[in-house]
């Protein structure tokens, strides 16, 4: 009974609107951070932002955490509003499903752009995965990463323009439906702005003799799987199964329940892999 009340209460919260507020803060703080960031000297620029630029640490933290909150709240929004998604046509739902990995790539490219020890390794891993995809892989890598040949230049372009435009195109129809007013969500905005005052965004300097580094939290399961399987299987096909299954999570399909079971098994496996990665 209590659980049901709690679920109904959570369901009634406007998670989508909260997520959108965080996106606005993320975009605005991203514009500010970009003014001091230099893709030619990425780590130096990031460290200098934290140590030298007045309020640099704050704005970097604000950009980092507002983006993280945007993603987490969007996921909660997806779960709580899942019942209503049956009204979408396949094309509308498909666009929103593709928006999900684009959102993850936005977070991921931001993580790589720091080019600290973990960001730099994560970037090279992503590049190796993309190059392993047959036919379209090298072109995708050329468009999004290409770190070996161009350093942070293309990751920067992807992060500040390409992926943002792509995400907005994919989510535009969805966003257009739900207008929000910033003034209605001042407590959320205030909490994000205040949170970043106290918690700094992570930065991992290169240290000698380090034996284990881990990628961003959403990448940990993949990092672990890459230990056992080749990049094409672990880095592309395994996540592609999840995205492909999401396309078919509409009740109109006769295999709807099977798809839900597949997603649950996938998520559970990913959780186990993440725990394994954390235990190293």
């Amino acid at each position: 009974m209590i659980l049901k009340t709690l679920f109904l209460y959570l369901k009634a919260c406007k998670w989508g609107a909260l997520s959108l507020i965080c996106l606005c803060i993320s975009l605005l703080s991203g514009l500010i951070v970009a003014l001091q960031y230099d893709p030619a000297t990425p780590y130096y620029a990031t460290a200098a932002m934290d140590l030298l630029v007045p309020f640099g640490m704050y704005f970097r933290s604000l950009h980092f955490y507002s983006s993280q909150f945007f993603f987490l709240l969007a996921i909660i929004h997806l779960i709580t509003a899942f019942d209503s998604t049956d009204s979408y046509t396949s094309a509308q739902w498909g666009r929103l499903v593709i928006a999900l990995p684009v959102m993850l790539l936005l977070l991921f490219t931001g993580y790589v752009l720091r080019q600290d020890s973990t960001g730099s390794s994560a970037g090279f891993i992503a590049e190796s995965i993309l190059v392993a995809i047959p036919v379209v892989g090298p072109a995708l890598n050329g468009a999004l990463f290409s770190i070996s040949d161009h350093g942070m230049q293309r990751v920067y372009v992807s992060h500040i323009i390409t992926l943002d435009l792509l995400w907005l195109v994919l989510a535009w129809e969805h966003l257009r439906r739900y207008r929000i007013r910033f003034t209605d969500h001042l407590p959320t905005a205030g909490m994000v702005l205040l949170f970043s005052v106290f918690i700094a965004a992570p930065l991992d300097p290169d240290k000698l003799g380090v034996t284990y580094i881990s990628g961003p939290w959403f990448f940990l399961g993949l990092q672990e799987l890459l230990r056992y399987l080749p990049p094409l299987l672990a880095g592309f096909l395994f996540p592609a199964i999840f995205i492909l299954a999401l396309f078919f999570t509409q009740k109109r399909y006769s295999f709807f329940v099977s798809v839900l079971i597949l997603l649950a098994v996938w998520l559970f496996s990913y959780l186990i892999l993440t725990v394994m990665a954390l235990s190293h």
Partner: protein
Amino acid sequence: MRRPPRRSRRSLLTRRSILAVGVLAFLYPLLRFIGFRIPRKPQRIEIAKQLLPGQFHPTPQFILFARENKVWAVARRCTHLGCTLHYLEKDDVLECPCHQSRFSRDGLVLNGPARRALEVYPVEQRDTSPFYIVTL
């Protein structure tokens, strides 16, 4: 007046075909443009510090090793997925912090998941500073 459906379907098909041809025609130069690698100038890295036999010097791209009559530079990029390797002096191996592949200081694979040996760069030795010039 409504157009007969057959004609409209044909006109839609024609428009779609023109669009598909247009997209394909645009994709070719786009992919060639994105995929082209501008030849990089060879990078020459100067090391001012002189190494005694048994010593090593790490840089972001390579680790320079000195032994009795030999100095060599091994790339720090893991051949598995590209993470930056660290030299563990105690075990005398280079280890990848991402998936724990291990390499000898000559760059040979000791433990997977990496399968290929590390790149070894040419080192020019000099009697005055800079004592070593490594070409990448």
